[in-house]
Structure formats: C-alpha cells, structure tokens
C-alpha cells in the first residue's frame, strides 16, 4: 500500500510536468488546429536555458524558472512568426510537416551547438525528503506541484478574465467570425504561442531539477506523451489537458511500479490509440460532427 501511495506521489509530480506541456499543445491546437510537433523541443530549450542561467549567471531557482519562461515565450513566438505564420492558410498537413521540420531543426541545431552529451542539471535547491507517514515527499516534488498549480491558476485567469483570453476563446470557436469582430488574429496566435511556450519552459526547468539530467533529444518523447495527455483530456480543453497530463504521469509510474518499466512508453502510445478510437473527443472535449 505504501509503495502504491509513493508511486501516486511520483506520478503526480511527473504528471504535473506533462500537464504543463500538454497545455501548450491544447491551446495551440485549439486556435490554429496545428499539432505543434516542436513543442517538446521548446521544453528542451527551456531546460537548457535554465541550465546555463544557473551555471553561468548563478541564478537561483526562481530566477532560472522565470527567465527560462521568458526566453521560451520569445522562442515560441519566433518559431511561430518564421515557420507557421506564412502557412496559416495552407493545408494542415503542410503545417504538420513544417512543425516536424522545426522540431528536427531544434534538436539537431542544439546537438550541433552543445553536443549530444547528457548534462547534469545543477541542483540549486538542496534536496530534502519529508516523511509523511507511509510516503516520502521531496521538496523538489513539492516545488513541482506548487509551481504547476500556480501556473494553472494564472493561466485560467488569463484565459477566462482578460481581454486577450477572450480573444483566444473566440478564435478557438470560429477564427473567421473572430477576425470579423475585429480581433487581432496574428496577435492572438502569437500570444497563445508565447503562453504555451512559457509553460513548456517552466516544465523544462522543473524536469531538470527533478531528473537531474538534460540532453538535446530530451523533448521528443515527453512531447509526444504530453500530446497524448492533451488528446486524452480532450484537445482544446485546458482543464482536460491538466487532468490528462496527471493521468499519463500516473499510468507511467504505475507501469514502472509493477515491473514493466520497459513498456511504460508503449503503454502511453497504446492509451493514445485506444482513446482516439473509443473517445476521439477526449474526456472534456467537444464532440464535432463531420459536415459534408
């Protein structure tokens, strides 16, 4: 029982990271129907930026977290302007291939600049474990939950209460009508990318703290898993993405705890295929009807 609870805690911290990543997927997909393949690589950029700010500029944890979020927001907007903006009206497959190209570019570009070696993420916060009866929680795990919750609340406020958030919601419903109502379409898209990428940057720094190792290819698999989380929660739904992320985190740690850790990635992909077949609109997504 105690190992089960322990796995629950571990799953929750891993799941928080997937949730942060999944939000970026779901927001971008909700607005421009693009599966932003490069999102996982923005997370990698965030981890690397955090690594260098801590190592070379001697930032503290929060300094690294916030500067990396700002950096990733800029990177995300830059990618959007250079690669996706010229293609907004082209077929979705074209955009998907471009996104794959961007992902390939970021991975190989970083490998070229910083070599493919795995680095140890500097531990700016001394790891302390707290005994809570049957389970142990480390301060890094607590930090991950708390940061995720704060960011989720912030995001919810931005989306529900601000003018920009309303523009985002309007664009998700009907981009053409939103444009006719005088919404600044390209500004809103850029803003969405900035927010999503900032969350990915935060996730990158947090995972660096948690797993203690980063490399240029680290974004590929978590990126896909976070997409699975977004699909599971219902693409376009923000609470769905958060819950989907946590479910995927649990699933992964559960597979690990029953001794099938080699198959934990396969389990996530299998979940994806099953979800797409049984419940294509996810847990919280809206059902769409195919129109002729």
């Amino acid at each position, binding site marked *: 029982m105690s190992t089960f609870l322990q796995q629950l805690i571990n799953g929750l911290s891993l799941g928080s990271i997937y949730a942060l990543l999944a939000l970026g997927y779901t927001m971008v997909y909700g607005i421009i129907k693009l*599966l932003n393949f490069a999102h996982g690589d923005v997370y990698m950029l965030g981890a690397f930026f955090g690594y260098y700010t801590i190592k070379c500029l001697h930032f503290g944890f929060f300094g690294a977290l916030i500067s990396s979020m700002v950096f990733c927001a800029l990177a995300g907007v830059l990618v959007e302007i*250079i*690669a996706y903006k*010229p*293609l907004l009206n*082209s*077929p*979705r*497959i*074209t*955009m*998907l*291939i*471009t996104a*794959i*190209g*961007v992902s*390939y*570019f970021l991975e*190989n*570009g970083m*490998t*070229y600049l910083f070599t*493919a070696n795995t680095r140890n993420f500097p531990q700016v916060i001394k790891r302390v474990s707290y005994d809570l009866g049957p389970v142990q929680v480390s301060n890094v795990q607590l930090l991950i939950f708390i940061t995720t919750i704060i960011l989720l609340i912030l995001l919810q406020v931005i989306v529900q209460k601000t003018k920009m958030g309303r523009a985002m919601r309007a664009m998700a419903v009907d981009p053409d009508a939103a444009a006719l109502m005088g919404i600044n379409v390209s500004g809103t898209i850029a803003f969405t990318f900035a927010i999503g990428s900032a969350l990915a940057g935060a996730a990158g720094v947090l995972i660096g703290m948690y797993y203690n190792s980063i490399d240029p290819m680290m974004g*590929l698999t978590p990126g*896909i898993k976070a*997409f*699975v989380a977004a*699909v599971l929660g219902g693409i376009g739904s923000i609470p769905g993405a958060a819950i989907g992320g946590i479910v995927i985190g649990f699933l992964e740690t559960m597979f690990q705890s029953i001794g099938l850790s*080699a*198959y934990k*990635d*396969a389990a996530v*992909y*299998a979940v*994806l*295929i099953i979800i*797409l*077949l049984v419940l*294509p609109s996810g847990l919280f997504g809206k059902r769409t009807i*195919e129109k*002729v």
Partner: protein
Amino acid sequence: MKANLKSNLSWLLLMVVGFVLINFLVVIGVIDSFTENMLVTIGINIILAVGLNLVIGFSGQFSLGHAGFMAIGAYATGIMTLGGFDSFGGWIVSVLVGMAIAAVVAIIVGIPCFRLSGDYLAIATMGAAEIVRIVLNNMKITNGPAGLFNIPQYTTWPLVYVLTCLTTIVTVNFIHSRGGRAVMSVRDNEIAAEAMGINTTRWKLAAFVLGAVTAAIAGSLSASYIQTIAPSNYGIMQSVSILIIVVLGGMGSMTGTFVAAVVLGILDTVLQSFGVLRMVIYAIVLILMMVFKPSGLMGTNELSFARIFNYKKADKGEAKA
C-alpha cells in the same frame, strides 16, 4: 496494354541501360566501394520513399510510422539469417517472412487507425511504430537494445537495383489500376468517394499494407548490407528522414521521389564531413520548402514517357491539320 507498350518499353530500356551503365562503371573501377555504398543507400531509400509516397501522396493518409515496418523486415532477416537460414535462399525466405509479418502488423494497425485522419492518424501511426520499436527493444530474440550484429551480408548493389525496380513497378502498377484510382479518389475527397461506392477503409488499408510490405523489403536489404541493427535505428527520426524524401520530391509524384532520393543521397555523401550540421541543413530545407513550395520539387507531376509520346503525336496531328 498496347496503348502503353511504347512507354512501358522505354521504361524497361531505361532500367536495363541504368543497370548496364552501373555495371560497366563498377567493372572499369569508376565506382569504388564508397560510391557503391551510396548507390545501395539510395536504392534502399527509394524503396522506402516510394512506399511512403503511396501512403501519403496517393492515398492521402499521413503515416509517420514507416520506420516501424522497416524494423520488422530488418529484424526478420537479422534473426533468421543469424539463426540457421544462412544462405541466399534463406535470405529470400527471411524477406518473405518479414513482408508477411509487416503486412499482418499493418492490417492490425491500419484497421483501427484509419478511422482517424490528418494529424491524429500521424500520431497514431507513430505511436504504433514506437510500440514495435519498444517491443523489439525488450525481446530476448532481438537481443534487446544492443541489437544484432554480424548479420551475413547478402545485399549487393544488383540485388538492390532489381528490388528497387520491382517494388516500384508493383507500386506504380497498383496506382494505375482500379485500386489506385480508388485510393486517389479517397485522397481527393473521401466523402465523395464513399458516395460513389468505394470501400474507403479497404483501399486505404490496401495502400498502407503495400507500403508496409515494401518498407519491410527495404529493411531486410539494409540489415543484410550494414550487418548491424539496433532498435534505436528505427525511431521517429528514421520515419522523418523518409518523409523528407517524399515531401521534397513532391507528395504524389513517384519520379519526384526518385529525383529527391538521388539528390539527397548524393548530398548525404558530399556533406558527410558536416556531421550534425547536415541534419540542420535538411531541417531548414524542409521548412523553406513548406513555406515557399509546399508541393515539393515535382508536385504531383511525373516524368513520363507516355506524355512525351502523346505530345509528339498531338504535334504531328496538328501539323497534318
């Protein structure tokens, strides 16, 4: 048959001339082992890209799992030729086994996945290919993450050449058959095709299975040429590099795929010393291509002898009139 006789004969002649030319160059020593290696790689890439182009360009189903089927072929050959089937006949049997397994896997993956479309399908097929890779990574018979080595070498350039021609002929004939027309109608408008009485799932699946089977052949060829295989060779990156060939050549153009595979194969060899930078260049080319010319080098056009002959005929007809 008769209508296409002239152009078919021309293609056959081109294939034979190509073979004789390469053979001649090998005999007189212009093609050394380095260049031969490049030719074999190009040939294998053509087989892979032609299969993927059938799936993506002709049936319009965006699959990102081609490397998974390649892995199945490679492992079938690796395991069988290392385990008692160590002869050319055994190699052929192993290729057939790989093709059969790939076809079965493609059907199992395809039946559920083809209820999806677009980017969902891309992710689902990629997930399926990753599952194949993870299973290979954890089985005893595949020797886990270390992979198989010292696989006997049966792949030679003439074998690759012949199989490249054969798979292309089969694929192109499929495209020009009733099935091919059905597949293309699904690509152009799935709902209209269905209304015309086409069993869309069946034809999408047919294209997918044919693509998977050719990928397995390519996998067998490469395993028995490189002699070392490991699951990490068949990841998403491999699927993306095949995709790059298809996209650059033009989705829906077989001759475009040939041109792109040859150009990229030569570039690969020339840029070998650049290492990772080469991948960066490819990524930039891919993005620029999508931004400025999303249809690829050839679009959906083909270099075709039939068109040249018909053009001449039309010319003559006009001159008479």
